[in-house]
């Protein structure tokens, strides 16, 4: 058993202290290095966990000798001026926040993994102090009645929490809120678990290990905004770990999207459309549905990047819609005026016919993959493996519109991990268009609503970035 767990740690007779009675039992177990101890001996006297009882364990015994009781941390709640609750990933717009206490070890076995236990994630802003309230320990023997018992917690990066509490009825309740003497690092930090080693001095002077709490802690660049789902914190903080300036933090978070391999807080890979070829069959459009169901349309990916930035307190990013122009730049199609339908094909597509189609504006006959419009018996356009998207080598590629993100005058396309596209809006649009677009579709035959495609990407801005 780990040191500090009630009943363990050299307390052979289980009376909460370590005294001569326990020393007698220790000596009977002392078989030397490399000799497998019996389960009974190992469970109580193998202080270093190497399955024997030797002189190394005797040193630990000496340190524990005189302890008047055993203490194990049971629960705590994070607090403080820069504390931010983290919301549970869920597909709706109003996901619940993780409750309190944030650490709960009901059976006092040293972890928060058992039924009824939990360890919830929390978030803080960098360079601020962590407060801890509601700190309680289990104590044996249960008949101890003590006041002003010193409590000490030691965390990473020089953070220490000190306080005192009262022991009664087998519980040590620490008074008030303990605030770390040192602040968090002045950078974004991803603590997979922020381990705090607790020690308690029941006798008022000698501290003994009393367990370790291990909560995921996300330390953000600035004051978190938006929905604050766990996966938004996880992605952003993990990516921007160590950053202390805004633009490098943005760059680092963007890098997370460029390898087309993004994980949510539960270790699941997030995808762009996944195995869905018809965009209309994918009914997930938001970041919350993306991290919950693990795939979405492009709108969910653009939203995810914005949300990841917002949980870092980085605002000002914009959700940008890209649509074909309908302002007369493109000639009217051969169906309706004004054009009721228009969209684009994302690379790659094969154009196989030299035979002019029925519509000069959209000369290549095209069947949309989902029979949303009329279908030609012999189309001229074939979908080929093309630009890979997030966790998807060949995602859906027939769209009416697309969604990207604009940050500080730069354009990012999270669905494909492409960008940033820089320059003026026109320049950025052209760069995106040349990189991504195989052609533009519109109605080529009004009586049947069949589609045609313009293959060439013209030297003009043909898409329209809504801002």
């Amino acid at each position, binding site marked *: 058993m780990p040191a500090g767990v009630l009943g363990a740690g050299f307390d052979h007779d289980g009376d909460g202290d370590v005294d001569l009675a326990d020393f007698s039992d220790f000596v009977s177990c002392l078989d030397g290095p490399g000799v497998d101890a019996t389960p009974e001996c190992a469970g109580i006297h193998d202080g270093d966990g190497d399955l024997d009882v030797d002189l190394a364990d005797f040193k630990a015994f000496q340190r524990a000798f005189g302890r008047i009781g055993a203490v194990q941390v049971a629960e705590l709640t994070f607090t403080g001026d820069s504390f931010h609750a983290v919301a549970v990933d869920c597909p709706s717009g109003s996901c619940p926040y993780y409750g309190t206490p944030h650490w709960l070890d009901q059976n006092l076995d040293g972890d928060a993994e058992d039924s009824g236990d939990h360890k919830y994630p929390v978030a803080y802003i960098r360079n601020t102090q962590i407060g801890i309230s509601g700190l309680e320990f289990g104590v044996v023997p249960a008949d101890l009645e003590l006041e002003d018992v010193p409590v000490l917690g030691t965390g990473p990066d020089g953070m220490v929490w000190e306080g005192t509490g009262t022991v009664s009825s087998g519980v040590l309740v620490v008074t008030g809120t303990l605030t770390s003497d040192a602040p968090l690092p002045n950078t974004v930090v991803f603590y997979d678990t922020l381990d705090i080693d607790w020690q308690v001095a029941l006798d008022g002077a000698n501290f003994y290990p009393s367990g370790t709490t291990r909560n995921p802690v996300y330390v953000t660049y600035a004051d978190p905004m938006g929905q604050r789902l766990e996966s938004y914190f996880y992605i952003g903080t993990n990516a921007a770990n160590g950053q202390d*300036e805004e633009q490098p933090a943005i760059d680092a978070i963007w890098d997370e999207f460029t390898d087309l391999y993004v994980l949510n807080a539960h270790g699941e890979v997030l995808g762009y459309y996944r195995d869905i070829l018809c965009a209309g069959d994918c009914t997930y459009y938001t970041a919350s549905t993306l991290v919950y169901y693990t795939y979405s349309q492009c709108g969910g990916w653009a939203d995810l990047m914005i949300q990841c930035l917002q949980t870092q307190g980085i605002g000002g990013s914009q959700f940008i819609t890209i649509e074909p122009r309908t302002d007369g730049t493109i000639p009217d199609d051969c169906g309706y005026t004004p054009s009721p339908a228009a969209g684009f094909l994302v690379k790659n597509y094969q154009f196989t016919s030299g035979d002019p189609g029925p519509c000069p504006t959209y000369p290549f006959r095209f069947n949309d993959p989902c029979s949303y419009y009329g279908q030609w018996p012999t189309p001229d356009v074939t979908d080929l493996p093309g630009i890979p998207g997030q966790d998807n080598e060949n995602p859906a590629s027939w769209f009416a519109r697309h969604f990207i993100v604009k940050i500080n*005058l730069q354009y990012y396309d999270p669905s494909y991990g492409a960008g940033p596209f820089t320059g003026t809006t026109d320049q950025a649009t052209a760069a995106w268009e040349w990189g991504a677009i195989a052609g533009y579709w519109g109605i080529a035959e009004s009586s049947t609503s069949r589609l045609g495609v313009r293959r060439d990407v013209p030297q003009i801005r043909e898409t329209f970035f809504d801002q």
Partner: protein
Amino acid sequence: MGIRQYAISCGFALAVALAAVSPSAGIDSASDAVAQIAVVPRHNQWSLIDPDQHRALRNIIKTPAADRDRLIRLGDARERGIGIFIAEQQGDLDLLLSIAHLLDDDDPTIPYALPTAMPEQYATQTQTVAEYLSSVYLEWFGVDVDRSVEKYEELFGNVTDSSRLVRPWIVRLRRARDDSQATAQIKELVTQLPEEVRWAVATLGYYNGFYTEPEARTILSKLSAPIKNAIQGEGRLLPEEPLFRMNRGTYRTLALEHCRRLLSPSSDK
């Protein structure tokens, strides 16, 4: 179905408001208006649906200020949302800045639509009054107040004159971009702005595609020497704007860098 049911339930009060706009407006128009508001996307997708193509929307955004204010002040949660929609469409920033207390209003109001990648398809999403007002602030001022009055006060505390905010001028230019006359009028107003606001509007307007480079250079060339010197130096030149306060260094740095480039001699011959 959900939208339609809602439209009927709050049609009466809205019809009263609409009646003040047009003799032909009535319950049907009110229902249409609510249904059409519900498909107006929020965030940065405001202009996807042109109110001119929706008769009921065209009517409702002409609602007189008194009726609009009554909807916000006395209406139920859905009517408060409609009032916010009208104020937002009318660009009445002073009103929007006077109703920040509604950031505490968690009652459900008019839904909004998310455009999808598919033609003509939108996904209806629910929202509270606070969420809707937050999205309106995001649209006009570029910052997320996160349904928090406290956050709003932190970001907007020093704002005393909404006409001196840079971001709303960019929004006005964007909304007017298909109307050359309206665009020209806004650009004329920009030339009358105080210098410390004008340079930022011209710079960000150029990088958002609303000014040509010669237009932006012309505006910037007319700045006074002290302002130009401040742009070239390290002085605090950006207006006390929520967007710049929230984004701290980055937006400030980018705006100044881009402006310095526009102030430098053009490489074009």
